[in-house]
């Protein structure tokens, strides 16, 4: 019990937030461990930003409790919480230099001047912006502004760092670079971090654990790999990456899938329930071969419907030949191992899809 408290930096207990009777955040329970980067991932309007703003203190929960290091912060205003936030727009004070921006928070704590200068130099070094300390924010590029914003929010050594859409204002190329860099800096400081993003790649690159949110509720919490490989609902499966779903039913341990012609056998980890479900297959876990010979299980025949060459891999759409799923289109990713393709596919070519039983994920259907 005690041990759990030490490891838990932030506890969100049954928190709801209503705006005019509409639940923006709906009975959310979360435990965030010390030193981890935790991502709240979801589409717009899913409540992730409201949850973040409640952690910062800009919104008050309608019910529930928020504890930081075991102490409830419900009644402390933003300026008394050991929480600092990096805003989506960075919110650097335009009339202050980089140095003054970073010193702002330290000055509020009435630290001695020498100590402030030392700490400012330290965090500027951390984000490699020492050379720019006397510049105004408008004289910096987007990436540099982000580093300053990060430095400012780390300067006070917060118990919890919040990132609101950290890459929202950057272009795509810079984004990839900054994601890794930001994650490295945060990990080297060892601060607990909650980030909000709508970009699954960003969440998977930066976060140790991800919570998928929809309509104010948490759908699934887990490491990026868990969420990708073992989605627990249709929504998370479709939100993260692309996936092929086939309607199926489990009864008495027997899986029947009408939309696929052959017998479908799933890995043992999955089939522990009864009722309607989906057979879920990730496109990169399906093998594609020319020909017509079918095995008894975990395969299907079809014709090539569409081919998209994406450089690193091809996305091939195959229309199924037989079964109740006739005409259903399945997405398959085929990686380009060799520069000169040894095996190419043509439109309307007959092909066979096959997959390992480990690749099959069974997702319980929410609605029949």
């Amino acid at each position, binding site marked *: 019990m005690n041990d759990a408290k030490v490891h838990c930096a932030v506890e969100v207990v049954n928190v709801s937030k209503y705006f005019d009777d509409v639940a923006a955040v709906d009975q959310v329970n979360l435990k965030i461990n010390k030193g981890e980067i935790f991502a709240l991932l979801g589409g717009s309007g899913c409540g992730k930003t409201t949850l973040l703003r409640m952690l*910062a203190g800009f919104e008050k929960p309608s019910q529930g409790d928020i504890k930081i290091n075991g102490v409830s912060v419900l009644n402390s205003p*933003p300026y*008394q919480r050991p929480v600092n936030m990096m*805003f989506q727009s960075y919110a650097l*004070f335009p009339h202050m230099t980089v140095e003054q921006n970073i010193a702002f928070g330290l000055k509020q704590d009435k630290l001695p001047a020498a100590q402030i200068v030392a700490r400012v130099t330290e965090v500027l070094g951390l984000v490699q912006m020492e050379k720019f300390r006397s510049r105004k924010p408008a004289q910096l*590029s987007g990436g540099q502004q982000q580093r300053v914003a990060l430095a400012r929010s780390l300067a006070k050594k917060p118990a919890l760092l919040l990132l609101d859409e950290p890459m929202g204002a950057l272009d795509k190329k810079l984004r990839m670079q900054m994601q890794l860099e930001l994650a490295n800096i945060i990990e080297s400081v060892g601060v607990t971090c909650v980030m909000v993003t709508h970009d699954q790649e960003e969440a998977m690159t930066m976060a140790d654990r991800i919570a998928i949110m929809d309509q104010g509720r948490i759908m699934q919490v887990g490491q990026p790999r868990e969420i990708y490989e073992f989605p627990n609902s249709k929504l998370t499966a479709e939100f993260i990456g692309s996936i092929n779903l086939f309607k199926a039913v489990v009864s008495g341990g027997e899986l029947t899938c009408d939309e696929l012609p052959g017998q479908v056998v799933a890995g043992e980890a999955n089939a522990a329930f009864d009722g309607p479900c989906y057979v879920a297959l990730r496109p990169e876990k399906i093998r594609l071969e020319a020909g017509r010979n079918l095995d008894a299980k975990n395969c299907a025949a079809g014709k090539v419907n569409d081919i998209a060459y994406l450089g690193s891999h091809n996305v091939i759409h195959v229309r199924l030949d037989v079964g109740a799923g006739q005409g259903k289109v399945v997405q398959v990713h085929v990686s380009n191992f060799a520069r000169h393709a040894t095996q190419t596919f043509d439109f309307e070519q007959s092909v066979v899809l096959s997959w390992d039983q480990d690749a099959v994920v069974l997702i319980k259907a929410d609605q029949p």
Partner: protein
Amino acid sequence: MKISRYLLLAGLVFLYFPLLVLVIYSFNESRLVTIWTEFSVKWYLELLEDRQLMDAFFLSLQIACSTAFMSVLLGTIAAYVLVKFGRFPGQTLFSSMIIAPLVMPEVITGLSLLLLFVGLGNWLGWPASRGAMTIWIAHVTFSVAFVTIVITSRLREMDSSLEEAAMDLGATPLKVFLVITLPLISPALISGWLLAFTLSLDDLVIASFVSGPGSSTLPMVIYSSVRLGVSPKINALATIFVGLILVGSFVFWWSMQRWTRYSAAKTSGQQ
């Protein structure tokens, strides 16, 4: 193209030729405003000795300055409440009552304020007599409307996450207002101040209603003296004003220009 040029020129002449004539005739020797005799600066010297005009000038300046300061103070508070406090009961009433003096005819404003001051004087014994104080109150009531609009628009376009960031970093709401909000809206405060100053200096109608004996503002003195016949002294005074306004607005324009060019250079330096 050609025709529009001429039209523009004609418009400018129509607007500024009278001003030019006024300036030229301020250096006229003759007492008659319409007949040019020879160059002299004697009307400027006489102007300095005219106690009534100079008193009125300083009174107007005093009222205009204090009106500007008070309007900026009240206008900032009103704008802050309107923009930052979200919806509150009576918000629409509050905002329309602040804006109302903009569309109210000056005569109505002046008359109603006069009635108010007379009524208050009878009831409470304050204001005992009308004068600089009542003019100041009247000027503040209508200047606040303009100042509030200027500051409201600036506050609205300000990124509110700046204030949240300051609060997040440990600044109390009062500190945030003083250290973040005020500096960021300062251009609006300055232009609001100038606007209120000009409005107050310029006002004749409302001041005539609410002024009392011995407290005539400059526009009132000029207006009454012109009725008795135009003296070239007025020309001299007007010339001084035009000069001051030209210099003032040039300095304002120049500093604004420099400021925008500076920030534009910085923004383009980003890429």
